[in-house]
C-alpha cells in the first residue's frame, strides 16, 4: 500500500511478537510449502542420476545418505513435511467450514504433533549413519 513515509517495523514482520495463531500458521505453511517445492526439484535432480547409469545412482544416494548433514536435513524435511501435512489438513477443514472456532487450537495441535512425530522418528532417520 502506498505510504507517505516509511513506518518501518510497524508494518512488517518486525511485529512478529504480536502475530496471532492464524498468522503464524500462515507463515509456517508458506515457509514449509516453499521448502517442499525446493526439495521436490532437488529430489528429482538427484534421482535423475539414474538416467546416467544405475551405479551412478546407487553411489550418489548412498554417499549422500552416509553424510550426517544430509540425515539431519532429512529430519528437517520430515518436520517441514509433517507440519505442512497437518496444517494442510487443518486448512482443508477450514475450507470446509469445520471447526473455525478452534482454528488456533488446531494450529497448536499441528505444531505439537509435528514435534512429537519428528522426535519419534529421529532414531529411524539417523539409523546407520554412525555405523
Amino acid at each position, binding site marked *: 500500500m*502506498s505510504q*507517505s513515509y516509511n513506518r518501518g517495523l510497524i508494518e512488517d514482520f518486525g511485529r512478529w511478537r*504480536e502475530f496471532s495463531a*492464524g498468522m503464524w500458521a500462515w507463515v509456517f505453511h508458506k515457509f514449509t510449502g516453499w521448502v517442499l517445492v525446493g526439495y521436490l526439484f532437488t529430489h528429482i535432480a538427484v534421482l535423475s542420476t539414474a538416467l546416467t547409469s544405475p551405479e551412478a545412482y546407487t553411489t550418489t544416494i548412498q554417499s549422500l545418505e552416509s553424510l550426517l548433514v544430509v540425515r539431519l536435513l532429512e529430519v528437517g524435511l520430515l518436520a517441514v513435511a509433517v507440519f505442512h501435512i497437518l496444517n494442510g489438513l487443518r486448512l482443508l477443514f477450514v475450507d470446509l467450514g469445520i471447526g*473455525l472456532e478452534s482454528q488456533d487450537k488446531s494450529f497448536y495441535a499441528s505444531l505439537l504433533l509435528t514435534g512429537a512425530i519428528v522426535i519419534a522418528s529421529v532414531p529411524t532417520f539417523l539409523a546407520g549413519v554412525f555405523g
Partner: protein
Amino acid sequence: MSTQLPEQADEESSAAEVEPTSQARERRLQKKRERAEEAERQAEKAEKALDDEDTYHLKVFRYDPEIAGKKEPRFDDFHVPFEKGMTVLDALMYARDTYDSSLTFRHSCRQAICGSDAMFVNGKQRLCCKTQLSDLEEPVRIEPLPHAEVVKDLVVDMEHFYDQMEAVEPYFQTNDLPEGELEEQKQSRENREKVKMSTRCIWCGACMSSCNIAAGDNEYLGPAALNKAYRFTMDEREGEDMKQQRLEILEQEHGVWRCQTQFSCTEVCPKDIPLTEHIQELKREAVKNNLKFW
C-alpha cells in the same frame, strides 16, 4: 472558489476588519495574562500527575505533513490520571483537552457504533472507545492503523477502504419485489439469523488493516467488503439471479480467492463478525456455482 476578495470588499462591513476597541484589547491582554498563569498551573498539574501513582502512561504516534516538528514521525508521552471505567478513547480525549489540543484522531459515538476510532493499540487493531485502559499493559502504545496512509497523527486515509466496500455492489437488489402497496417482502427467521452477524459491520477498517494479504495486494477486496457481499449473497430475498451476479464479482481475481485464512480479521473485528467463516462459505458457494458449468 477564489480566495480573492471581490472588488467591493472595502465597503463591505465585514466585521473581521473592524478594529477592536482599546477596551476590548485591554480585556484581551488581561485574559492573556490570566491564561499564561493558567497554562502554568496546567503544566504543574501535569507534572504532579506524573508523580501520581494512579496515572496511565500513553505513547502516542504523532505526525503532521505540514508542521515542522512533526514531519518526522515521533512518539509523544502523555500521563493521564486514571479513573475506573476509563477507555483508551477517554484517555486520548483527556490528553488532547488538557495537554495538547493539536492531538488529532477521529471519534464520535463513544459507543462502538460509528467505527471511526479503530487504531493500533499495543500491537493490535482495536476500537479505542471499546477498550478499557485497565485491560492494557503500560505504556499504552497508540498508533494509526497499519497499512493505510497516515493523514495526521492517528488519522488514516480511509478512501481505499471505502472504495473496496463500494466495489461489491453493497446494496440490496432484487427482481421480485411484491406487487401490492405496503406489502412486505418476507424473509424467514433462519435467513435473517444467517445474515445477522454480517450486517453488524461498522466500517471501522480494523480487519482490513490486520490482513496481511490486503497489505500486500492493494486490489484485494478485503474481509470487510467480502463480508458485505456475503450479507447480500446469502439474503434469500435477492433471488437466484442476483446471487449469480454477486458470485461473479466475488470470484474475480482479487476477490475471495485471495484470502489465505489468516484469521487476523476475525480476531480483531470489534463486532465479533466471523469474517473468515463468511469468506470461506463464499468460496464454497463459488466453487459449487462453477461446478454447475462443468
